[in-house]
C-alpha cells in the first residue's frame, strides 16, 4: 500500500464515457480514489452506493470522489446506470490493474484491487490511505469523514 506523504503516481484512464481522465487534471483539489474489486457486486449496500448517499457531504468538504476498478468502461457505464449514481468510474483495464499496482492495492491472488481508499491532497501528495482487511469488507463512510475532519 502506498504510504501517506508519497507523491501520488499520476495516471490516465478512461472514464465510464470513454473519456481520458488524468489524476493531474485534479491538481488544486483533493481527490479520494476508491479502488474496488469490480462492478455489480452482490452485497447489499454496495460500497459506491453507500458513498453516493453521502456524496453531498463529501463534496462539501471539497473532495472529488473517484472509483477505480479493472472493469472496462462499458461495464462502468452499465454499472452507473443500474445504480443511478454519478460518481466518476475509471477503467484500470489495460494493462490490467496497472494503476492499482502503482498504489499497492492490487491483489494478484484474485486479479483485482482490494478495497482501498487513497486521499490525495491539492498538491498531488498522498494524504491518507485505508485498506480493507479483505475484499469482502468495505469501510463505512464514517472512515472517510474521520480522515477529512
Amino acid at each position, binding site marked *: 500500500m502506498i504510504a501517506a506523504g508519497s507523491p501520488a503516481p499520476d495516471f490516465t484512464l478512461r472514464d465510464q464515457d470513454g473519456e481520458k481522465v488524468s489524476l493531474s487534471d485534479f491538481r488544486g483539489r483533493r481527490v479520494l480514489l476508491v479502488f474496488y474489486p469490480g462492478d455489480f457486486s452482490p452485497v447489499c449496500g454496495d460500497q459506491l452506493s453507500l458513498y453516493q*448517499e*453521502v456524496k453531498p457531504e463529501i463534496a462539501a468538504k471539497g473532495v472529488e470522489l473517484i472509483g477505480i476498478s479493472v472493469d472496462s468502461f462499458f461495464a462502468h457505464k452499465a454499472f452507473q446506470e443500474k445504480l443511478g449514481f454519478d460518481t466518476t468510474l475509471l477503467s484500470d483495464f489495460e494493462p490490467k490493474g496497472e494503476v492499482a499496482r502503482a498504489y499497492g492495492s492490487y491483489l494478484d491472488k484474485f486479479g483485482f484491487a482490494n478495497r482501498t481508499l487513497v486521499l490525495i491532497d491539492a498538491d498531488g501528495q498522498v494524504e491518507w490511505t485505508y485498506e480493507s482487511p479483505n475484499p469482502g469488507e*468495505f469501510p463505512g463512510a464514517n472512515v472517510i469523514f474521520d480522515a477529512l475532519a
Partner: protein
Amino acid sequence: MSDLTSAPVPPIGPGDHVRGEGEGLIVYADLACPRCAAAWVEMAGRPNSIAFRHFPVASKHPRSPALHAAAEAAGLQGRFFEMVDSLYADRGRVDDPHLWERVERFGLDLERFQRDRRSADLAARVRRDFLSGVRAGVAGTPAVFDACTLVPVREREF
C-alpha cells in the same frame, strides 16, 4: 451539513421503533434489501427486543425511500412493525397500490397515510437513523448491533 465522523451507535431511546421487551438488538436495515428480509425472519424468533433503524440505500434499491416512508407513516398510526413485517414477507408487492392495500388491511386512514409519507418531518426521521448508522460504521445491510457493538456477519446467530 451533518457531521458524519465516527460516533458510537446511539443507545435505544424513546424515539426508536422497538418490538419486544428487555435487552435486545439494534438493527439497521433497508426495507428493499433481500438479505434484510431473510435476516428479519430469522430474528423474529428471538426472545428479546429488536430496535429497527432505517438504512435505505436508494442507489442500490431505488424503491427503498418510499418503503421506509411507508413504514414510518404506518407507524404514526400505530402499525410500524406490521408494515415492516408485511414488506419483508411479500417483497414482490411493494408498489403504491400494494401499499394502499396494506393500509386498508391494517385499518388505517389512507388519506392520512398518503399525507404523512410525503412529509419533510418523516423524511428527516428516516435520515436521522441513516446518518446515525453511517457514523457508527454501518457499511451494508442488515447491520446488527448487540449491546451497541456491531456483530460481524460471519458471527451472527439469531
